[in-house]
């Protein structure tokens, strides 16, 4: 077992280093950070001086190795746009994204499972068919458009919910939370629906098909034959067995929610990591882009690593095959 885990960890590290190298070599195509950093009154001298000061005059591989060396020690450098430590900015922005992601995930899981079960049980009903067709729209409309539509309806036309920002936040230690104020809670609604909609439809469709599969099984028929109530059959017996594959997918989707919050955060001016990343691209803020990309890669690599290890624990055949 141990060799298997070590091998997987080694592979993960390799993946991280390669991802970082690709990301770093792409930064040269984003543009020249110097241009944004100096005002229009700059001189050629200023440009040369700053380029040398930031180490941008060195070859890309050298810059990358330096970045890796410092990143290992938790030092991601200084943001070119804000002039502050990147690690500090990320810590400051993380709560906004994590709260948004958490609420989106809860929304996606609760509503997704509920609708999935409903459409499976009433699969020929009018309402269930309507939900299924509507979910197609949810999957195919881009996040950007969904966000704008929600803003238009609930902020501009109805005036119920805010169109941007986090509202009032409360500081708890270094964490800022929007869960403790009314405006903070209101501000969470539209972005978390926007962000969670895709995952919600995904979970709903998965639950539905798994549930339909399970409902065809013999033990369900026997349960019916024993005279158990529909409620007990559906929720105690069928749903429980439906959830095994669903939970795996949900786990993987959580990473996706955090990583793909970029668009939602841009639409709602949500002060989280996604917005930070978009700002960084426009300003060619290489340290922030590098740190963010590394962080997301680490997250996905760790999730996959854990999944692999868990599977190996559950299924001994994988361990043998790995050798």
């Amino acid at each position, binding site marked *: 077992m141990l060799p298997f885990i070590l091998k997987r960890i080694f592979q993960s590290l390799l993946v991280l280093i390669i991802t970082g190298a690709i990301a770093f070599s792409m930064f040269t195509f984003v543009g020249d950070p110097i241009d944004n950093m100096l005002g229009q009154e700059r001189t050629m001298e200023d440009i040369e001086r700053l380029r040398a000061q930031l180490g941008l005059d060195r070859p890309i591989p050298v810059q990358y190795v330096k970045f890796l060396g410092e990143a290992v020690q938790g030092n991601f450098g200084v943001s070119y*746009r804000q002039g502050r430590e990147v690690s500090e900015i990320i810590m400051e922005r993380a709560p906004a994204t994590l709260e948004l992601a958490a609420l989106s995930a809860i929304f996606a899981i609760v509503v997704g499972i509920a609708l999935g079960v409903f459409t499976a049980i009433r699969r020929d009903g009018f309402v269930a068919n309507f939900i299924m067709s509507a979910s197609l729209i949810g999957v195919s409309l881009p996040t950007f458009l969904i966000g704008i539509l929600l803003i238009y309806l609930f902020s501009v036309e109805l005036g119920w919910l805010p169109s941007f*920002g986090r509202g009032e936040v409360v500081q708890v230690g270094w964490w800022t939370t929007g869960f403790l104020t009314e405006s903070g809670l209101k501000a969470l609604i539209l972005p978390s629906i926007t962000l969670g909609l895709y995952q919600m439809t995904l979970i709903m469709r998965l639950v539905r098909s798994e549930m339909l599969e399970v409902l065809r099984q013999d033990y369900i028929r026997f349960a019916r034959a024993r005279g158990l109530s529909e409620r007990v059959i559906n929720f105690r017996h069928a749903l429980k067995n439906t959830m095994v594959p669903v939970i795996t997918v949900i786990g993987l989707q959580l990473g996706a929610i955090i990583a793909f919050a970029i668009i939602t955060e841009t639409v709602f001016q949500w002060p989280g990591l996604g917005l930070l990343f978009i700002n960084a691209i426009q300003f060619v803020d290489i340290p922030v882009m590098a740190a963010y990309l590394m962080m997301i890669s680490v997250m996905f690599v760790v999730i996959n690593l854990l999944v692999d290890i868990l599977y190996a624990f559950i299924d001994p055949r994988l361990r043998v095959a790995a050798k």
Partner: protein
Amino acid sequence: MKKTTALLTVAALMSSAAVVNAETLRWARAGDALTLDPHSQNEGPSHTMRHQMYEPLIIRDTAGNFVPTLATDWAPSADNPNVWVFNLREGVKFHDGADFTAEDVVFSFERAKQPNSDMKELIGSITAVRAVSDYVVEIETDGPNPILPSNLTNLFMMDKDWTEANNTVNVQDFEGGEITFATTNVNGTGAYTLVSREPDVKTVMARNEAYWGRDEFPLEVSEIVYTPIQNAATRVAALLSGEIDFLQDMPVQDLARVGDADGLVVKQAPQNRVIFFGMNQGADDIEADDVDGANPLADVRVRKAMSMAINRDAIQQVVMRGQSEPAGMIAPPFVNGWTAEMDGESVTDVEGAKALMAEAGYEDGFSIRLDCPNDRYINDEAICQAAVGMLGQIGVTVNLDAIPKAQHFPKITDGATDFYMLGWGVPTYDSEYIFNFLVHGREDDIGTWNGTGYDNDELDETIKSLASNTDLDARNADIAGIWRVIQDEQLYIPIHHQVLNWGMAENVGIEVDPEDQPRVKYFTMQ
């Protein structure tokens, strides 16, 4: 009983008066200030934010005229042509209650000249700043400098004692990631004080009740809540839904929608920014074209023909939806040296342009790459697309390469483009600024943005002499002469002057500032 009622009435009146006075201005624009340190980062949104809390010696009004601020009057010294004398306003206090005196001015200038300061180029000619008395300051330059005051309108004054006490005498090393006390704290003389700041999220400011101009300006806004909103659609939605009262950076396509909405108005004014095309005319051969061994752009007839092929009225009507002013020179109307006559010199004449092309030996035309930004100016890419079609009419086949500004601008300063779009604003309101950056031949510290390869030594001499020519009539004659050369040589192809749009709630009263720098002390809230 009567007494109680009277008291209650008075109390009610007083509280309602207080409500009238407590007006919050919720203000949004696309970007945020980069830092609050007054001398780090010479950049628009950063200056705008500082202008609420700090003050320079002089500011400009919406027509571009000087307005006394911390200086009440100023003039060149009678004894020494290299010296300007500034008389300071008396009785001004910083937010912490300290008096503003000449000592603070001397200190602030010294601070702004430090290597980390982004403002140092603007005051590079200053050799000494002396406090003659508590309220008189002398500024000496390395030769007569007739337009010195023009360079001081964004140079903010700090309190010497506060800055020293808080260990923030050195300008923040922005590129090195330094955070100093002055980056996040403010002690200015301005009309608003800093309440809280979260970079990129929200900045709150409160009215300074001890402001020296408390009775002079409306100062009807008691609290400013400033939020950057990056996405254009969200920005407009926030204004439409009443979540903000005042919006800068209005997207052109939403102007009608906001203007038609109940309770909202759009105000516009010409902006201090001209959009134009630059052409590499200095090289013997250029890379971006299909002509071997020659540079068609080196021929003034070709440059003139290209300018004549551009239909500026069509661009104004179709691309800009009326939101621009066709231009014939690369200076905005506020700038010293601008004339209506020269600004009207770019006329569309496709037949004449074809004739000129034939005369220059290019009757079959040529093809060339046009480099264009797609996220910097209003409808920048669309303007370039329109130009592609128009130049095609005279046989110039244009391949458009529209890219983000972060990639576009380095091409110009590195000389890696032969045909490009650029926009230019003139913070000093004087043509010298344009000549220094766009016309003078490229050297280490001058001609930085001149991507045309144009280098006229005689003209360069005259441009350099402007800096110390105190005979304003002679100086203006030189400026006019330089412009004549630029126009005759068709150094650039001017397109238009940008128009600035501000959206606001009906109760917000403010006129559009051509430099896009609203100063909230002028706002009324009826």
